[in-house]
């Protein structure tokens, strides 16, 4: 058995800024939000324990619709981005001059804030945007397609994929680059065609990276505010948008806090599910 490292005063001193920051700002803000959702720290009126705010959120049609909408956006954006990024990551596995160029272009969205990204894409897919105009000019469609603010949320998903593709691509590329050429060669030598190599070698070996990418994407898209504001449907709004409406429009800070806690709980649940699943995938190794 390895002896545990001793916590010397020096080490404790070094840890204070980092740990202190986490405990103070993150820990305290999360606990205040949780307490607020239970009726404490009330901005107006008197404070005291109550489940009333939870009840009114969980029985509100709008809040439930927002929750379902955000879940849908989270899941579809995360699956969609990984589906688009994985073949690209495989393509970029072997570097080449043309690929270097393409690789730089693909990374551009990484440096554009989400809100700006949303407006950029807006020009493309809005009712009178580039795509619709082109399709109409070419007489392929008679009437513009509704790609933005559609009730399902395709506009949001499209922008999420566009915006987060490079980020997910980076994660997947590093996962794939750790797969050795010899491993692929051995599989081919033993008779594996392209599909077998993909499903039996690439995907399982890149699975930790795929999972991380999906989790991070889900959390981003689930808690999204700017992209849904610009490109989301008129109804329902995302949970984050709903929070803003509750707080700013209705001054219902406690109900907003309930929504905030729901986002936090969902995030923690997803991370927990991920770690369980990662254990399963990795088995004993």
């Amino acid at each position, binding site marked *: 058995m390895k002896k545990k490292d001793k916590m010397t005063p020096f080490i404790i001193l070094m840890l204070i800024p980092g740990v202190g920051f986490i405990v103070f700002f993150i820990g305290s803000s999360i606990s205040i939000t949780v307490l607020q959702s239970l009726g404490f720290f009330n901005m107006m009126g008197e404070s005291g324990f109550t489940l009333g705010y939870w009840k009114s959120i969980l029985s509100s049609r709008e809040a439930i619709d927002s929750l379902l909408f955000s879940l849908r956006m989270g899941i579809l954006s995360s699956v969609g981005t990984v589906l688009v990024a994985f073949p690209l990551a495989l393509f970029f596995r072997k570097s080449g001059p043309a690929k270097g160029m393409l690789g730089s272009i693909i990374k551009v969205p990484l440096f554009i804030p989400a809100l700006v990204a949303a407006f950029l894409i807006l020009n493309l897919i809005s009712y009178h945007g580039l795509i619709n105009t082109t399709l109409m000019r070419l007489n392929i469609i008679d009437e513009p397609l509704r790609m933005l603010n559609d009730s399902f949320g395709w506009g949001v998903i499209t922008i999420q994929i566009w915006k987060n593709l490079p980020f997910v691509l980076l994660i997947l590329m590093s996962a794939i680059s750790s797969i050795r050429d010899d491993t692929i060669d051995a599989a*081919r030598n033993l008779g594996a065609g392209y599909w077998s190599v993909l499903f039996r070698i690439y995907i399982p070996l890149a699975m930790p990276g795929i999972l991380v990418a999906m989790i991070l994407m889900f959390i981003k898209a689930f808690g999204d505010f700017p992209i849904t504001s610009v490109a989301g449907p008129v109804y329902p709004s995302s949970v984050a948008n709903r929070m803003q409406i509750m707080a700013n429009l209705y001054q219902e800070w406690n109900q907003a806090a309930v929504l905030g806690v729901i986002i936090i709980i969902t995030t923690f649940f997803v991370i927990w599910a991920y770690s369980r699943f990662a254990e399963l995938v990795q088995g004993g190794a």
Partner: protein
Amino acid sequence: MATLKLTNLVKHFDDVVAVDHIDLEVADGEFVTLLGPSGCGKTTTLRTIAGFYYPDEGEVYFGDRIMNNIPPNKRDTAMCFQSYALFPHMSVWDNISFGLKMRKMPASEQKIKIERVMEMLSLSELGKRKPGQLSGGQQQRVALARSIVTEPEVLLFDEPLSNLDAKLRVQVRVEIREMQKRLGITAIYVTHDQDEALAISDRIVIMEQGRIEQIGDPYTIYRHPETQFVAGFIGLANIFDGVVLEVEGTRCTVQAPFGNVLINAEGQEVPHKGATIHFSWRPEDMKIRDRTSKNQITGNVLQAVFMGDITDLFIEVNGYKMRAQSDDEAKIVAGDSVSFGIAEHAFSILRE
């Protein structure tokens, strides 16, 4: 099972010529070893046969089928990689069964074959482990098991035993050889261990800088090296230049720097009178205190290294250094003057 033929094979990497016009024919069920120093093109040749590289020139034949453009998964070869190349996410069992799964073999049949090969390579206890939980030698045996279990047309081994300890190495190489004979699979085996090559092969291909220096059975390669490189690479050799003074049938009198020698070139290309030749002989061909052989040499012992069964001798003859061996009882020490006899058939005449 198939014959294997390489004709005029060339493979470049940018400006490096890794394989340089190689011709090789391997009979059905034959065990051929590629032997040569690091970087001479052994792995490249093997990978071209497996289909990972397409040749820049020349052809690869299995039987009478040209394989040049057939992808690796459509060639019935199994390669044991120098780096093992095990699948890190699969158990030992799943690694070994991979090739059988790809061949869509029924599970019951797979089980029998896998258990047999695991037993043969002492892997039976390790089936559930992942490659990361194995020692280097165990990983190597899994790689070996994974390739031979598929019983392909051509087995390709890239230094499969380099990480085993000496005892296991001998044991496993005997097993590889027996299995290959039993199944009659054509095998190409890469090594840079010459003892291994001599022990295991039907024929040995000596490679140097992408070219083939000599092809022959182990006896011929050892007893009759054809080039200076082969003579120096396999075993120990004394290599000298000389001028042919006299030719009588296959017997030549050669003037060497340390004195004249009588060489019987029977079975070799007999040189012309007046030609300058390179020739070699083995240290063990110098028979100590042998008065009957045609060539008599007396030398000063510079160094004597006792090796147990023999004594390694570094001697000096008329100012020229050479190596000899003694299995004589009498203890020899540096400074002794010792006479040797060398038989006239002991010499090999070498090409450049």
